């Protein structure tokens, strides 16, 4: 589905991503883990077009999208969330979600001024989808709150909600779990599994909570220092010496119950 081909990203003197090559398989839920500063977010940014790689190519469904702008990639079916929430702070939660939808008729100036009937049906559908998504995210009680006034975790949920509004083929989730209550996160994981199974959506998620990763992902990529360290099933990766050293530490505070 998405393939990174020898991607390098340089920030000034620092090479944040160093000849990284990996693939996010179609229809799968792939996990991307690695120590802080490994280059995971940067890799996402390269895929989504927010950062232009110094060298290398990004392939989506066999098509080279390295030169496309972020909005063109979004139109090609790519949706993403941001690690640090990027909400539309003066729009309400509902509007945040609706604004994220694609609305070809309603975003046409001529239609808007002269032919308003043209986008009514489209708008209705966007509205319904937004309501459903908000229900799922348990944000109904703040539906009319300005997104800028939400709590840190609620902003993350809105972040996820906007990505789901895009009707995407691939969704990149950057630490959606950090700051989300674990019980709710469990429910979201169920939803992601359902979307993956029923609609064939492809997911790639960066996460530090291994329980969550292992519940969702059958395949895990491990990045360290800008390159792919290893990949495999969660179990395999968990037991990999290099990964333990670079990433897990002693496992003193057990997350499992």
């Amino acid at each position, binding site marked *: 589905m998405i393939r990174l081909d020898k991607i390098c990203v340089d920030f000034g003197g620092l090479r944040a991503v160093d000849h990284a090559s990996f693939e996010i398989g179609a229809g799968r839920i792939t996990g991307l883990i690695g120590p802080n500063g490994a280059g995971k977010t940067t890799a996402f940014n390269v895929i*989504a*077009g*927010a950062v232009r790689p110094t060298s290398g190519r990004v392939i989506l469904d066999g098509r080279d999208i390295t030169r496309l*702008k*972020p*909005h063109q990639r*979004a*139109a090609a079916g790519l*949706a*993403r969330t*941001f690690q640090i929430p*990027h*909400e*539309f*702070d*003066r*729009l*309400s939660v*509902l*509007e*945040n979600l*609706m*604004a*994220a*939808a*694609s*609305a070809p*008729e*309603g*975003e*046409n*100036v001529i239609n*808007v*001024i002269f032919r*308003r009937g043209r*986008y*009514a*049906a*489209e*708008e*209705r559908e*966007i*509205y319904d989808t937004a309501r459903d998504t908000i229900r799922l995210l348990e944000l109904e009680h703040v539906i009319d709150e300005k997104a800028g006034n939400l709590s840190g975790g609620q902003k993350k949920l809105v972040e996820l909600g*906007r990505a789901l*509004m*895009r009707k995407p083929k691939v969704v990149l989730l950057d630490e959606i779990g950090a700051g989300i209550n674990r019980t709710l996160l469990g429910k979201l994981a169920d939803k992601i599994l359902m979307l993956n199974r029923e609609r064939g959506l492809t997911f790639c998620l960066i996460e530090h909570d291994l329980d969550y990763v292992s519940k969702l992902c059958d395949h895990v990529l491990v990045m360290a220092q800008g390159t792919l360290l290893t990949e495999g099933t969660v179990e395999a990766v968990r037991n990999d010496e290099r990964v333990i050293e670079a990433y897990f530490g002693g496992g003193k505070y057990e997350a499992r119950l």
Partner: protein
Amino acid sequence: MELTGLFFYLVSLLILGGIYALLCLALNIQWGMGGLFNAGIAGFYGVGAYSSAILTTAASSRHLGGYGLPVPLGLVGAAILAGLAGWAVAKICVRLKSDYLAMASIGIAEILRLVIVNEDWLTNGSLGVSRIPRPLGDLATGRMSDVVFLGFVWLVVLLVFVASSRLYDSPWGRSLRAIRDNETSAAAAGKNIEKFRIQTFVIGCAVMGIAGGLSAHYFRFLSPTATDPLLVTFLVWVMLMAGGSGNNKGAILGALAIWTLWSVTEIFTNRLPPEWATRSSFIRMLLVGLLLQVVLQRFRAGLIPEKSPPVRFKEEGPEPDR
């Protein structure tokens, strides 16, 4: 003060108020919806004013012209040329963040002003363009022609109001406000930021051009004194903020309220004792400056604050519920 006098003063107040209302609506599209900090309103206003003036006047040896078009066509020309100027500016500057765009647009307006003042062949420089016709010129003469013109101006205001309300209350407007709030995330949601911003800027500038054109027809004479940033750019900003940015009704109300304030203060300062007569203008400026502070402190969010358009739907039926 006799009643007819009062009437005609009101007419003039509403004509200029209407022209300012157009400028405010235009700025509201750019700033209120799009977050584009245009501080060069005077430039686009000037382009519109001179375009319409040159297109509709008879030939003159002193400046370009002699097209003698009817006024409505002149205004269309004003909209197109100001829109084009806006497009060129937007092409270069639209990536800039708000305050930087402000500075760039101030600079561009100043450059446009210099062109107007210096390129005699085009605009007759500081000597100005005279004998600019009024629309429906033969319908009335003398003071009555102001009444006709008033109707004309407010018809334009109404059209622009309807159009901009539709823009505001639409997916287009919503996406625009989303871009205003967060560009990165709007791009990730598939919005072509550049396209949206250029559209916004051009629409706003075209309306500013129309406002400029209308004022040229109202003054019947156009010289660079009509494009002073103080009375065009800054005052319009004051009006929009006072009226409530992000709200079209607020924009119009703000324009009328502040213009009235600006104009009427002089009537009162003229009533000061004669020793003060020579200083009354400064007292008036002082008053305007202080009243502005009062407005800002008392009506923080403007007379009519920004309100997102309702997005509720009736449970059945596809029509938006307004």
